């Protein structure tokens, strides 16, 4: 289990002032479950993922992995203990091939597995293994390769940050089916999917809504999906009315 206890995180803005991005979060991610983390843009979802991975440092609180306090551990140490994160916007690398990065992700994995996971994310291994991770790949291709790395690594906690972004409709459905079937009821692992996709959310065991750095709703899809939908509809209505008023003016 991964536990966040009263986690706060600050960044400094352009004026050098500290602003609080995460405000006292308490979350438990259990094994055998698939979590959806959703909420408006800028709500703090990626920040949570980066705090868990150790990329951002929290200013208050503790993070526990299997009851061990990992708050002070580096990114490397956390990765080795079993935390994995597929970036929302994966960086590109000049001169590294897809095969290289997959080998880094899982040094002991056989080539057969590298091929398998590329196929799983909808990429033909023959065409992609030797391609450069530099500027030549499309946004969707980079995202798929990012997911292949995490699927291959299969750490205790896998956090996918907007896996649907930039990935075509044909692939994403298959891919999510794969993630969900792989992690649901898996007694050893946890998946966290940060997403805006309304097809993904109902497939998960639990939903967390993050807004303004706090949890505004939490529960099973049955319990809270209608709440989210109502809220979205309200917002859409407000915005539409706003438009109408603007036009009349």
């Amino acid at each position, binding site marked *: 289990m991964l536990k966040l206890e009263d986690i706060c995180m600050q960044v400094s803005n352009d004026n050098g002032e500290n602003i609080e991005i995460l405000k006292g979060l308490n979350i438990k991610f259990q094994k055998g479950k698939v979590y959806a983390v959703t909420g408006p843009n800028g709500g703090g979802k990626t920040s949570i993922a980066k705090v868990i*991975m150790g990329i951002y440092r929290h200013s208050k609180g503790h993070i526990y992995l299997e009851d061990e306090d990992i708050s002070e551990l580096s990114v*490397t140490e956390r990765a080795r203990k079993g935390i994995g994160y597929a970036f929302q916007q994966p960086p590109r690398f000049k001169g590294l091939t897809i095969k290289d990065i997959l080998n880094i992700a899982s040094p002991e994995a056989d080539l057969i597995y590298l091929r398998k996971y590329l196929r799983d994310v909808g990429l033909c291994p023959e065409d992609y293994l030797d391609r450069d991770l530099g500027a030549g790949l499309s946004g969707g291709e980079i995202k798929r390769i990012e997911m292949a790395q995490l699927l291959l690594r299969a750490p205790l906690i896998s956090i996918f940050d907007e896996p649907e972004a930039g990935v075509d409709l044909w692939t994403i459905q298959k891919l999510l089916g794969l993630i969900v079937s792989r992690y649901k009821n898996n007694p050893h692992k946890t998946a966290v999917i940060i997403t805006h996709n309304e097809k993904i959310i109902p497939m998960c065991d639990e939903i967390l809504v993050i807004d303004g750095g706090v949890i505004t709703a939490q529960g099973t899809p049955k319990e809270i999906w209608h709440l989210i939908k109502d809220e979205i509809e309200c917002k859409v209505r407000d915005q539409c009315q706003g438009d109408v008023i603007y036009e009349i003016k």
Partner: protein
Amino acid sequence: MKLSKLDLDLLNTIADIKGVPSGALNIRLNGASLIRQSSPNISVGPNADGTGLIVEIKPGTRDETVHVPVVLTQAGLQDKVYNTFIVGEGADATIIAGCGIHNDSHAISRHDGIHEIIVKAGAKLKYLEKHYGEGSDAGKRVLNPTTVITVEAGASAELEMVQIKGVDDTVRSTIAHVHEKGNLKIIERLLTQGEQKAESDIQIVLEGTGGTAQVLSRAVAQGNSFQLFRAALIGKAACLGHVECDAILMDKARIRSIPEIQAENADAVLTHEAAIGKIAGEQLVKLMSLGLTEEEAVNTILEGFLR
């Protein structure tokens, strides 16, 4: 004279050869030719004044390679050589040059290689030159290569020049003339560390219509090292030229990059791109999130960048 283990190791590093390769070859050890052999299509012989080699690749030769590596293991030796390479019409060949210096002394070991390359009409050349130095720190290892290349009509040449570790001081000068529909690509990869200095000066004159030239420079400067990169493209006809200089700067190192484009014809399309920066933080944490230490992540990024 025989090759020692040290010589063989250096040869392997700079020319990727284990033992003595078959085919056309000249191994220069400590200022003298140690092994020299020609092949039916490639003749390797001394030049008229005995200051270096003439390598002639017969017209129409297909897929052949000539090795001309230089090894310096004698401390304090100052070696200078003038080599001429002629790639005959329509030939397709590879030249593997390169220099490895081992210097444990306090004296300067130095090799100046002056190479003139003529790629005749319709021929295709790949030229590889790797530079490498090793030994204790006191004695300097100095390499000053000069390459003058002519790419004749419809010919193409790719020059790959790599300096991996251990060369204290280098001034590299490359001058190229590219004629009608000729094509030249220069790839340069450079790593400097400690107190090392490296200077590369490339000048390409695109003389004929339809000529193309491309320079790709990848540089990493670490420690207190300094690099100066100068590339000038001169377009005298309707031609296409591009210079790209990408550098990673670390520690207290400095890099100065001066791209220059000069067009003397309205249909010359010349462009340059230069970027110097440190390793992107996102790249580092990405690799660390896969379990690499920071040091391993840095090395992986640099290795890829210089590959």
